[in-house]
């Protein structure tokens, strides 16, 4: 008898989603979908506003990664002004962007996925959460929280607040970094490095612990996209787009981000509010690509900082023979390497004399009617595309969000996990949690903030083809 299993809501992710798994008559998985059930409407209601306000407005897209939107939006604004943004402002923006990577990745690894990785996929549901992690490993949880707090402190030092700062503006930034704030950040770096090392040890333990099942967590060939700098190194703020295939062959290189529409097309499905971007030249099926930490480490030639490069070499072993690392479970590992890289870059920028320069904002009016800004958000490549009239009023807005670009891959991951772990008409918390974890590996950011403490309730129902309830598991 054909059945549908629904996991709703998916927990420990940012935003609202559900998973549905269809079983065929033999009780085998026929299909699985990851549905995004929320709708925001930013592209519509920003029309008619001024592009000067857009960094502040679009930062509100997300409470976890407001800085990514701030970067992409102010860069789109830079393009509309058409003047050069002062180098100190660019350095400061990069600094804040690295702070954002640290805090967001720390949240994902230690607090959202940590309970699964450290307590285990089969740990009792009442313990397998942030509170359980704090009870079991208070030191580790505290270190993870402090690492996130460090990133937030960096953002706050520049933007006056860590959530939704309106600090980067078209043409530059509004405020520089004071000597006291700089000293306070530098002083904390040794502790933060130690926390990442601890995370890396845990990650390697997890790779051993889950060795038998890692391949089920979204291991499949796909394309990868990310920014690289002019030397081919890891890049999060500027640079050119690179797309590689599942064999590691470069399909696009040195592509100006302004050309994104030639590279990416978007498909839609009636069952999700999230679009399905794909690599245009190859079509929806073959054009599935992944973005985010895993993709960035796959597309770059090197990281560019000593510690991160050392880890990157180890990471590359999991791909084998020059191939990209294809398992989505390795997103976790990639995230830690990016935290390490960000800390090294933060140290490098804080030591740079350029931060003392007071030229941080170029002033100009509308000189171009189209502005495209790109940044590497924690979850992947983010595009802001604005069209303004001569007075700077927005006529068209297109936002390509990182998580959306992983949509096809997330659906594939859910299906792969369901095929491996789900069958028959009996449900099991641990097995269902594995399916959810496949989504957590991508750290999708479906909307806004994580201000809520604790967990959302989850209800999983197994329905027959006629809609009869066959089995039900609840937590809440």
């Amino acid at each position: 008898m054909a059945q549908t299993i629904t996991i709703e809501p998916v927990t420990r992710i940012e935003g609202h989603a559900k998973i549905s798994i269809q079983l065929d008559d033999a009780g085998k998985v026929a299909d699985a979908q990851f549905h995004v059930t929320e709708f925001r409407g930013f592209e519509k209601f920003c029309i008619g506003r001024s592009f000067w306000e857009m960094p502040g407005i679009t930062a509100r897209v997300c409470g976890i990664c407001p800085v990514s939107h701030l970067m992409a939006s102010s860069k789109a604004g830079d393009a509309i002004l058409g003047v050069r943004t002062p180098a100190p402002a660019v350095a400061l923006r990069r600094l804040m962007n690295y702070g954002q990577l640290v805090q967001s990745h720390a949240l994902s690894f230690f607090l959202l996925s940590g309970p699964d990785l450290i307590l285990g996929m089969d740990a009792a549901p009442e313990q397998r959460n942030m509170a359980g992690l704090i009870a079991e490993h208070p030191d580790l949880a505290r270190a993870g929280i402090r690492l996130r707090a460090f990133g937030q402190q960096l953002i706050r030092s520049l933007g006056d607040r860590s959530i939704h700062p309106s600090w980067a503006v078209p043409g530059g930034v509004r405020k520089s970094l004071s000597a006291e704030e700089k000293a306070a950040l530098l002083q904390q770096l040794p502790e933060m490095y130690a926390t990442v090392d601890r995370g890396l040890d845990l990650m390697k333990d997890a790779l051993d612990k889950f060795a038998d099942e890692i391949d089920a967590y979204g291991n499949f060939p796909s394309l990868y996209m990310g920014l690289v700098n002019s030397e081919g190194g890891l890049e999060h703020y500027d640079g050119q787009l690179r797309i590689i295939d599942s064999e590691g062959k470069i399909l696009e290189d040195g592509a100006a981000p302004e050309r994104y529409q030639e590279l990416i097309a978007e498909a839609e499905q009636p069952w999700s509010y999230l679009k399905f971007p794909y690599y245009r030249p190859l079509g929806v099926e073959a054009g599935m690509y992944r973005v985010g930490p895993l993709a960035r480490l796959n597309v770059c030639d090197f990281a560019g900082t000593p510690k991160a490069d050392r880890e990157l070499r180890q990471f590359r072993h999991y791909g084998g023979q020059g191939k990209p690392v294809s398992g989505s479970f390795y997103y976790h590992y990639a995230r830690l390497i990016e935290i390490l890289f960000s800390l090294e870059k933060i140290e490098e920028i804080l030591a740079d004399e350029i931060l003392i320069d007071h030229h941080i904002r170029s002033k100009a009016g509308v000189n171009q009617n189209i502005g495209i800004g790109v940044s590497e958000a924690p979850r992947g490549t983010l595009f802001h595309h604005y069209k303004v009239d001569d007075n700077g009023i927005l006529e068209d807005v297109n936002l390509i969000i990182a998580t959306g670009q992983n949509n096809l891959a997330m659906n594939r991951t859910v299906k792969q996990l369901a095929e491996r772990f789900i069958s028959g008409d009996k449900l099991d918390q641990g097995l269902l949690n594995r399916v959810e974890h496949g989504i957590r590996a991508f750290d999708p950011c479906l909307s806004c903030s994580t201000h809520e403490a604790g967990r959302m309730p989850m209800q999983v129902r197994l329905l027959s083809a006629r809609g009869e309830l066959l089995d039900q598991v609840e937590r809440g």
Partner: protein
Amino acid sequence: MPVITLTIDDELVSARAGQSILEACREHGIKIPTLCNLDGLSARGGCRLCLVEVAGNPRLLPACTTEALENMVVTTHNEKIDRYRRMILELTFAERNHTCAVCVSNQHCELQTLAAELGMDHVRYDYLNPELGLDTSHARYGVDHNRCVLCLRCVRVCDEVEGAHTWDVKGRGIESRVITDLNRPWGDSESCTECGKCVEVCPTGALFDKGSAVAEMKKEASFLRRILDGREKNEWRR
């Protein structure tokens, strides 16, 4: 000038004949919330936030346009007055799109400050959500009708102080809009002297310096008293 005596909040106070209740209160340090009122501009009685109770009068009266009279008994704060003031603020917020979080004047807005001070923590009325736009055609300034509360400080300062009378009002009631030069885009205005007084006296983010980012627009209306003292009393202070 003849002096009168009246009772405000159970205290006997003196005032000059011809002064408004609001002026008498301010001279004695009695706080009354205002929005459309600004020292240096003519009183308008538009926002109604300065409503006070005058013994013997069944209706609340605006302190800014009601003359203080001998033996008047005035109450500036009680449960009813505070309730009315909050209600007026709620209606003001419901009338247009005051999206504080992404407004250029966030944290530097008189309307927002009043809402906090008077304890207006929610709006009970349906928001009208009118479709209003921005005019950023001027080289230096912009107007966002979504944030306008029709206090008409801009109209008064432009007419009474600058003497240009670029600003005026079209329409009636909630259809009213501030306009420049018989409803031409601000950038096309021939009468505007680009002095920026209207921007500095605007209590919200309705008028702003072009290029302001969210929460970046800070205004300073104290210039008005300074230039008026120079003009009227030949007293120039910084």
